[in-house]
């Protein structure tokens, strides 16, 4: 995970405003909508260029200090990287999982500025040209997806797990995707796919 001292949660509470360098954060506007007295309009400024390394390529992304890595990927990258999904926006469903320096992380809880200097991998970066990665291929073969909205997050969590240990046991696989939620109920096929992908990675030695 990130070694950042300012998480997005803290930032939203106002603590991160310090790091934002003279920018009026959303906390200034966060008072209850029922209180209408102190509602002087505030100007939000302070866009900055953040250099990110995404799937091996450097990219300058224009965003705000409060912009999450998830939002940077989906809305500020060119072209937008929408494979990483916004679902809960709370770090509780894993749909936005990316690998940051090979560790799985919820990109909705990480500020884009905190991803500077780190290698970010998204679901778009796994396939080699048209050849799916072993995890992706196994997901397709085992029908480890239904609506598919949670799928990129699961693929990333399982990829992180198997790249470290292609011999991961079923309990280890379950634990690796314990932070991912699937509403269609695809779990058993995801487990099958992960076990099969691990086997293939052990044999092939490929990532």
């Amino acid at each position, binding site marked *: 995970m990130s070694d950042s001292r300012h998480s997005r949660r803290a930032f939203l509470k106002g603590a991160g405003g310090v790091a934002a360098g003279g920018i009026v954060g*959303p906390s200034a*506007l*966060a*008072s209850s*909508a*029922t209180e209408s007295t102190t*509602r002087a*309009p*505030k*100007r*939000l400024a302070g866009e900055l260029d953040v250099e990110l390394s995404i799937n091996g390529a450097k990219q300058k992304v224009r965003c*705000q200090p*409060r912009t999450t890595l998830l*939002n940077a990927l*989906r*809305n500020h990258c060119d*072209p*937008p*990287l*929408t*494979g*990483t*999904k916004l*679902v*809960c926006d*709370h770090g*509780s*469903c894993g*749909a936005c999982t990316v690998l940051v320096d090979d560790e799985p992380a919820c990109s909705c809880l990480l500020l884009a500025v905190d991803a500077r200097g780190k290698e970010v991998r*998204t*679901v*778009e970066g796994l396939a080699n040209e048209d050849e*799916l990665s072993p995890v*992706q291929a196994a997901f*397709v073969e085992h*029908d480890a*997806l*239904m*609506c*598919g*909205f*949670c*799928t*990129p997050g699961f*693929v990333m969590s399982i990829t992180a797990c198997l790249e470290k240990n292609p011999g991961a046991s079923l309990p280890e696989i*379950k*634990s690796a*995707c*314990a932070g991912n*939620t*699937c*509403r*269609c*109920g*695809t*779990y*058993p*096929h*995801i*487990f099958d796919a992960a076990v099969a992908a691990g086997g293939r990675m052990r044999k092939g030695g490929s990532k």
Partner: protein
Amino acid sequence: MSVQSGPQWKARSEMKVLNTDVPRVDGPAKVSGRAKYAHDIRLPGMLHARLLLCPHPAADVELLNVEPAKRIAGVVTAAELADRPDRTIFLGQPLAVVAAETPEAAEDGLRAIEVRYREGGWAVTPEQAAAEDAPRISRRQPNALTERETGNQGRTERALEGADATIDETYVVPVQHHCCLETHGMVVDFDGERARVWPSTQAVTGSRGEVAQALGIPADRVEIVCDYMGGGFGSKFSIGPEGLAACQLATELRRPIHLMLTRTDEFLMGGNRSGGRQRMRAGASLDGKLVALDAEVWRHGGIGRGSNPGQPYIYKAETDSMRIGSVRTNTDANRAMRAPGHPQASFAIESAMDELAYAIGMDPLDFRMRNLEDPVYHRQLNRVADEIGWYDHPNRETPGIPTGGTNVGIGFGVSTWGGGGRRVCVVTVRIDPDGSVTSSAGSQDLGTGVRTYVGSIVAEELGLAVSQVTGRVGHSEYGPANASGGSTTTASLAPAVKDAAHNARVAFSERLAEWLECGPGDVVFANGEVRSGTNERMKLTWSEACSILGSDPIVATGEWQSHLQTSGIHGAQAVKVEVDTETGGLRLVKMVCIQDCGLPLNRMALRSQINGGMIEAIGYGLFEERIIDPWLGVALNANFDDYKLPGSTEMPELVAIIDDDDERQQVIGMAEATIIPGQSAIANAVANACGVRIRSLPLTADKVLMGIQEKA
């Protein structure tokens, strides 16, 4: 098979593609992030929109001033919703909308809106709503209203008096949420003349009309695109207030609008499965007959009416009577949710059946069979009982008692559904001279595998591999299709695909007959070749055959054919659970579901659907419950931190069985049935393990522990 006869499904033994495991064709797009959902649509100049929701269950809106929002950097406009009421009637009712250059700016804009509410009297629980001094939620009728009575209650009362054993218990189910991972909403691109719209919808065809009306243009100028959608489960039939708001902004600004609900919005205004309360007074005879059932059924669907098919549901009682009604509260209206009403009905009747069985000292599996007329259930219950280990289980006629350690229990439940289709879909199959084949249907794939069978049915017909046919769905230009609800998609669509494929094959046969020196009825399509059925040396590769078409492709359409589908399905489930009698904690060990579905189109996708049904029932049984503070009227768990969904570490061993003893050669939709009885089986397994009967869902550890303490 003669081409002169109408379309017929092949015998299962002759099938090369259908009734096998087919990896879905859109799998690669979904695993690589290339699949574009409504959430993912990005257009030049697109704005992000957010809704302002009323934070009170009912309130007069005394002041609503959107002007300050317009002064926020990045905000392009803010507006009251066209039909916003002066008085709100449910928690989370949308009132205004903000459009901005970024999602963050849209949120800033929402916070800047000046709004003042005067809270009115409200009720968020059925108990509050049914109280004598409760504020009226609907002007037209009382909050609690009995809507229908069936049977002869007097007769039932007499039968209850004559029963050998009776129970009088009330079973309570909570409000559950759909929790589609992709929230509701759409992207609208409207230039004042024409519109292209990407909704997250279960109804591509229906959305077209709704959007046209909202934009004030004829439907033929609206194009709906829904290539992928992230779950619906019954909640996405209409474009909803969020769709209307997006159209309102698009009309005002003439810029593409991206309006998808936030997760909290989704909980508050995105629909739910109605809760409810069912009082069951039931009697059995010592020989194992359900001699009497009187049911009092209350549905709780917020400002909606809730759903419940009524009692005794699947079972047969010698005498039964029922009063069924609904209680309204100041909460979002319920919507259809996968098997609307059935899991609720199942929980009450399956629990009551178990209680009666133990009351007369009979094996609950045996008692079920004595009161289920359809022999399919007997076969299915025996199968799941075998698979779960019931016949080696010690507590078959008497529940266990808490041991202080781990108790093991087994429970059962059954399900039913229609799953038949109707005439709506028109499907087009096109064979091009270059050998490409497309099959197009204006239906939608909710994750069930529709796109795959739209192609694979054609592949089977033409003797091709699945990869040689492109199945296309999710586009209003592909022809009319029904909404995907009530498990009606397969039985409505697959016959039309089959008909189109058949018509394409007949047309192609007529063009090829001369080349193959045989009659059109003797042209055989198999193994990627086309050959004469009378002279095996006369054959063409697929690309040779197609090149004969010159510049004149085959285009054939197909419509629904009643004889290719039917309705009426059955399922049975069994659960094995471990109860920690020290803590009340539950661990599911194994869950088994057998499901019939007529002719299976894609066995792997069917197993996925069966697993999905079991897993959603695990959520309903163990975790899920909407909680609104009854004193403050605040939603307490409108997020994925506090509203718990089943996850990987809670998965038992899941066994999904397609009932191959069902030899009907017609397709039937089956997805809903699989979600119906799981939670009932879990509750029955807990009672079987330790004698603790939990009569309200979800089965949380505190309830189990209280039950254990009461027994001690």
